[in-house]
C-alpha cells in the first residue's frame, strides 16, 4: 500500500511548458484516472512519474522522492503499461512475463526459481498458463494485452501506472482488461494511476478523476463531479450528453444543434 504525491510539479520540454505547476495526492489503494484532451499533458505526467521526463518540483511515492530512487528502485515500486507496448513477436509468453522480474535480478544475473514461481502465479491468475510456451506473434489482441499486464504484475510493484491501456482494443476487451486491473488492484492492495481516453470507462473504473488541460488540473473529483456536460464542453470543446444509468455516467458525443431525444 503506497500513495503518490505531486508537489508543484512542472515539466518543460523543448522550450514549452507541458505541465505547469501540478499538485495532486493519490491515496494508497485508490484508482485515479487522468483525463483530458489530446496534448493536455497526460502522457507527460505519466513519464514524469516514471522518472523519464525532467521535472522541477517533487514527486513522492510513499515517503520517498522519485528523484532519489535509482532505476531499479523505481521499477520495484512502479509497474508501467505503455499505450502501445512493443511486442517482440518471436518471444514466448513466459519469457515476456519474466522480463517483469528484471528489477529483482542482479545486473548480469539470471532468473532464479523464485522468479519463475512468481511468473507462474501471475500467468495462472491471468489464465495465461496454457499460452506460456506460445510466441507473442501467435496471440490475439486481447490475449496480448493480458500478457502485457502479466509482465507488469510480475514486477510485484505496489503502484500500477497505465497509459491509455485500452485504446487499441475493442469494447469487449477494454472492459475485460479494466475489470482484471480492478480485481487485481483489490486483491493486492495496489494503487492505480491511469491516463484514459474513454470518459465513460474512466468514470466507471476510476474512483477519482483528474481533468488536465494545458498542463494544469482544471477539474478534480468523482465522476459525478467531473463528468458534466458543461465541464466537458469547456475543456474538450466537445458537445456531449451525459446520461445516467443505475448510478453510472455515460458520456455520449452529440452533434451540436442536432435534435436530442435522450432522457436526462
Amino acid at each position, binding site marked *: 500500500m503506497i500513495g503518490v504525491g505531486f508537489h508543484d510539479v512542472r515539466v518543460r520540454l523543448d522550450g514549452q511548458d507541458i505541465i505547469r505547476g501540478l499538485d495532486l495526492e493519490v491515496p494508497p489503494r485508490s484508482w485515479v484516472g487522468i483525463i483530458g484532451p489530446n496534448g493536455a499533458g497526460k502522457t507527460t505526467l505519466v513519464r514524469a512519474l516514471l522518472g523519464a521526463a525532467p521535472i522541477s518540483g517533487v514527486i513522492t511515492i510513499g515517503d520517498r522522492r522519485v528523484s532519489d530512487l535509482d532505476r531499479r528502485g523505481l521499477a*520495484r515500486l512502479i509497474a508501467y503499461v505503455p499505450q502501445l507496448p512493443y511486442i517482440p513477436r518471436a518471444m514466448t509468453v*513466459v*519469457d515476456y512475463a519474466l*522480463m517483469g522480474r528484471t528489477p529483482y*535480478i542482479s545486473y548480469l544475473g539470471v532468473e532464479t526459481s523464485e522468479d519463475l514461481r512468481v511468473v507462474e502465479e501471475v500467468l495462472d491468475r491471468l489464465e495465461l498458463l496454457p499460452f*506460456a*510456451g506460445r510466441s507473442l506473434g501467435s496471440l490475439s489482441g486481447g490475449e496480448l494485452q493480458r500478457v502485457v499486464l502479466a509482465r507488469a504484475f510480475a514486477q510485484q510493484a505496489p503502484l500500477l501506472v497505465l497509459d491509455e491501456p485500452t485504446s487499441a482494443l475493442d469494447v469487449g476487451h477494454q472492459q475485460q482488461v479494466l475489470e482484471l486491473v480492478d480485481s487485481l488492484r483489490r486483491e493486492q492492495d495496489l494503487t492505480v494511476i491511469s491516463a484514459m481516453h474513454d470518459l465513460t470507462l474512466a468514470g466507471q473504473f476510476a474512483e477519482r478523476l483528474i481533468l488536465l488541460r494545458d498542463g494544469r488540473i482544471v477539474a478534480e473529483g468523482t465522476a459525478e463531479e467531473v463528468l458534466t456536460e458543461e465541464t466537458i464542453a469547456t475543456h474538450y470543446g466537445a458537445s456531449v450528453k451525459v446520461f445516467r444509468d443505475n448510478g453510472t455516467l455515460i458520456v455520449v458525443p452529440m452533434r451540436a444543434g442536432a435534435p436530442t431525444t435522450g432522457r436526462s
Partner: protein
Amino acid sequence: MSATALRPATLRGIWLLAGLSGVGVALVVGVMLGPVSLDPTAIVRELVDRLPLIEIDSGLDRREAAILWELRMPRVVLAGLVGAMLALSGAAYQGVFRNPLADPYLLGVAAGAGLGATLAIAYFPAASQWPVDPLPLAAFAGALVAVFATYTLGRSGARSRTASTLILAGVAMASFLTALQTYVQQRESDTLRQVFAWILGQLTTASWPQVTLVLPYLVVSAIVILSHRRLLDVMAVGDEEADSLGVDTRRIRLLIVIAASLGTAAAVSVSGLIAFVGIIVPHTVRLLLGSSFRIVLPLSLMLGAAFLILTDLTARTLISPAELPIGVITAVLGAPFFLVVLRRSRSIT
C-alpha cells in the same frame, strides 16, 4: 502445476554440444585440406598430443607437422576467431540498435576500422615494433567514430526510423570512409602493397603472432557481450519500457557498442573487410532455434567460427593454386541472405 512446467528460453546442452562439434569438425577439415592433404585421424592425434599430460604419436612426418602447425593451424584459428567475432558483433549490434540488418560491415564499423588501420600503417610504419602494436587500437578508434556517426545520421535522417534508415546511413558512411582510406593509401604509395594485402584479407599470411595480437581484444569483447545476453533480451521492448523495468538502456547500449566495435576492429585489423558474416550467422541461429539472445549470442560465436573457417577453406581451394578473397564468398552468400532478411523485417514493421 509445478514451476518446471514453464520453459524459459535457455541454451540447451545439446545445442552447445552441437555448436562445439561444429567448430571441431570445421577445424579438422580446415587444416586437413590444401595442396597437401593430411590424414584427419593423424590431425586429431596431433591435437590430443598437445593436451597436457598426454603423449601419443600422430604419425605425421616433420614436414607434415610443420604444414599443420605453422601454415594451416594459425590460419584456421585466425579465421575462426574472426568469424566468431564478426557474427557475435553482428548479433550484438542487432540487439542494441533493434535492427535485424545491423552488421559490422553494413554499419560502416568495418570501414572505420579499415581507415584507422590504414592510417596506422601509412604514418607509423615502424609501429609494429612498439611494445603494444597500435594497429588494433587505431582500428578500434576508427570503428568507434564510424559507428557513432552512423547511429547519429541514421537517427536524425528520418523521422520514422525504419530498419533501413540506419543501414542506408551505414552504407553511406562506409563509402565515405573507404574513399578516405583509398586516398591515404594512394598518397602513401610506399606502403601501398602492405595496405592492399591487408584489405584483401591477411588470412593468407596468417601466423601465430597475429593470433596472439588480437586474442585479448576478442576475449574481452566476447565476455562483455555474452554477459549481457539477458539484458539484450529486455532491450528488445525498446528504451522506454526497458527503462521502466529498471534497465539503464543508454549505458548498456554504449557499453555493447564499444565492446562490439572493439571486437570488430580487432578482427578487421587481421583479416581485412569481410561482409555479411554478422547477418548470415545470427539469423541462421534465430531461424533454427529462436530469437532469445541467450541462444543467439553463444551459438553465433560458435557457428561464426565454423562458418568462416569453411568459407576460408573454400576461398583457398576453389581456384587452387590461386586464392579468392574471402570477402567475395561471404558476399555471394550474404547478399541474397540480406535481401531475405530485409523482406522479412519489412513485413514485420
